[in-house]
């Protein structure tokens, strides 16, 4: 076995040093009745090339582009990832190290995370950003917990146009707490209905996703004002980070905390994970942020360097008084994100975001011409909802056979939205791909 370097002689001489006669005897401290005597019922070992064959066949049993044309986003987006990003982030010095607890030999990871924190904070419009969380859903749940604890009011309010899975995670995270969650309905224009908040001041936080699950760009400024008027914190969220290459960021619209998903920033979809939980805040909430933070300092020769800092917030020091038990970050994903943002640069980021918007607008207008209805009139970024005629589900199935996935059926999440589909277009779909879909819709 290529990962087990011990020869028979090695084992023999090492056992002698330990003073036992067999490998079994090493386990003498385990009581007899605790031991498992049988053989594990697992498949027999595969050689490396047998494994390649096996995995190729499993991977072949999946639908991916370019074979399939997939018009689905909904929290996981198909963006081109430059080979250079994949290449540098797969260097084993980044991949095979532990958390940088020995900063003298971890400056590579530490500087990269400092750069990620800086660029993430810029993108969100926040003063600080953490070294990352598991994903957008858990980052948002943590953000709401910060606000709930800070304001100590009965409720937190979340938009019903936050990604349905994120809302499920929030409910799970809040289930052991005393705080209750209000879900705000949506308006005819595809934005969140905030009217019920204007009268009550019993909510400590308001969280809005923009672009929201329908792809609509929310009026964050208005939401922030309402939250602040009622002495609540305003949390901005997103599933599509690419949008902030074009849109005003949540921080500039009044968000106190921002929690979103950074998968679009150079991270493969990988059937939903790992992704990148982005979490940032204004400076005043810095010490309440859960998760890792990297800070700049100097070494004993006065040279600049980086360390993990403000560790007293964390679970291993504050123990049961910690506000979160997180003790890792999705480091490789943050590394991909910073390499991706650096590859695009400010100029490229804007250009690519604009292109995403343009392509989605093209499909939107062409689908309208082809008889689709656009039920929500608010402006969108690279996703939008279209309503097709009754019976479109049959056509949807036929399109699937032709290797086209024509959006995500929304009725699964919003039963009132029969025949509504959430469509997504990114830079990876060409005009001819969209034209093909339109032809099929018309035919």
């Amino acid at each position, binding site marked *: 076995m290529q990962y087990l370097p011990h020869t028979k002689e090695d084992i023999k001489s090492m056992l002698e040093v330990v003073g036992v006669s067999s490998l079994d005897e090493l386990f003498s401290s385990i009581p007899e009745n605790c031991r498992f005597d049988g053989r594990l019922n697992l498949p027999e070992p595969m050689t490396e090339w047998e494994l390649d064959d096996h995995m190729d066949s499993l991977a072949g049993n999946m639908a991916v582009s370019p074979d399939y044309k997939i018009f689905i986003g909904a929290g996981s987006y198909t963006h081109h990832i430059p080979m250079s990003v994949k290449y540098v982030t797969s260097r084993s010095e980044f991949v095979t190290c532990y958390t940088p607890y020995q900063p003298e030999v971890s400056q590579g990871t530490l500087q990269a995370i400092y750069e990620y924190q800086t660029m993430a904070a810029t993108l969100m419009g926040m003063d600080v950003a953490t070294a990352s969380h598991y994903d957008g859903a858990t980052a948002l749940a943590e953000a709401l917990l910060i606000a709930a604890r800070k304001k100590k009011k009965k409720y937190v309010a979340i938009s019903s146009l936050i990604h349905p899975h994120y809302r499920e995670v929030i409910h799970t995270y809040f289930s052991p707490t005393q705080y209750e969650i209000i879900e705000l309905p949506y308006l005819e224009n595809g934005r969140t209905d905030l009217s019920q908040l204007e009268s009550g001041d019993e909510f400590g936080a308001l969280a809005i996703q923009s672009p929201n699950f329908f792809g609509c760009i929310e009026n964050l400024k208005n939401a922030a004002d309402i939250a602040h008027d009622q002495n609540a914190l305003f949390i901005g969220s997103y599933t599509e980070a690419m949008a902030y290459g074009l849109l005003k960021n949540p921080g500039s619209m009044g968000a106190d905390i921002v929690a979103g998903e950074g998968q679009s920033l150079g991270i493969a979809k990988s059937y939903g994970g790992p992704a990148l939980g982005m979490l940032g805040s204004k400076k005043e909430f810095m*010490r309440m942020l859960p998760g890792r933070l990297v800070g700049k300092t100097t070494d004993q020769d006065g040279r600049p360097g980086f360390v993990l800092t403000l*560790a*007293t917030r964390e679970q291993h*020091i*504050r123990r049961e*008084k910690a506000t979160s038990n997180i003790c890792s970050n999705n480091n490789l994903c943050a590394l991909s994100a910073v390499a991706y943002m650096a590859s695009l640069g400010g100029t490229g980021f804007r250009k690519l975001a604009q292109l995403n918007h343009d392509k989605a607008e093209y499909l939107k207008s062409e689908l309208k011409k082809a008889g689709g209805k656009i039920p929500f009139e608010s402006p969108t970024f690279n996703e939008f909802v279209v309503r097709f005629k009754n019976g479109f589900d049959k056509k949807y199935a036929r399109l699937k056979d032709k290797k086209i996935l024509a959006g995500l059926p929304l009725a699964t999440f919003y039963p009132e939205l029969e025949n509504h589909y959430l469509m997504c277009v990114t830079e990876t779909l060409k005009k001819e791909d969209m034209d093909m879909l339109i032809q099929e819709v018309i035919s």
Partner: protein
Amino acid sequence: MKEINELNLPDDVRYTKDHEWAKVTGDVVKAGLDDYAQDQLSDIVFVELPEPGDTFGKGEVFATVESVKAVSECYMPVGGEIIAVNSKLEDDPGLINTRPYEDGWLVEIKPDDLTEMDDLMDKATVLKVLEGNG
């Protein structure tokens, strides 16, 4: 860490068992962390102080101090209202390490009952307790 005989424990303040010090001037009690506490914590990097106007009972937590790898709570030496906090600590929490009884004070308290000071220890008693523990 300092040896017990190296500790700076002034005679003109009184001590709690948790190593806060308290000193009465007129009808105001000034409080901070003693030399033993600051030495145990080592370099203090952050202090979370109460707001003037907050009130706490004797023995209640009124502040937390943080070093790089530890968090410690500070307990009221006497009950009462916080009338002033040491805002210098915001920028320079190391004052608790360098001048614990002077610039490194934490709060000024308007005590509810000044006789609560009588429960606190003098230098000799503190030394006895420390030696007992040592």
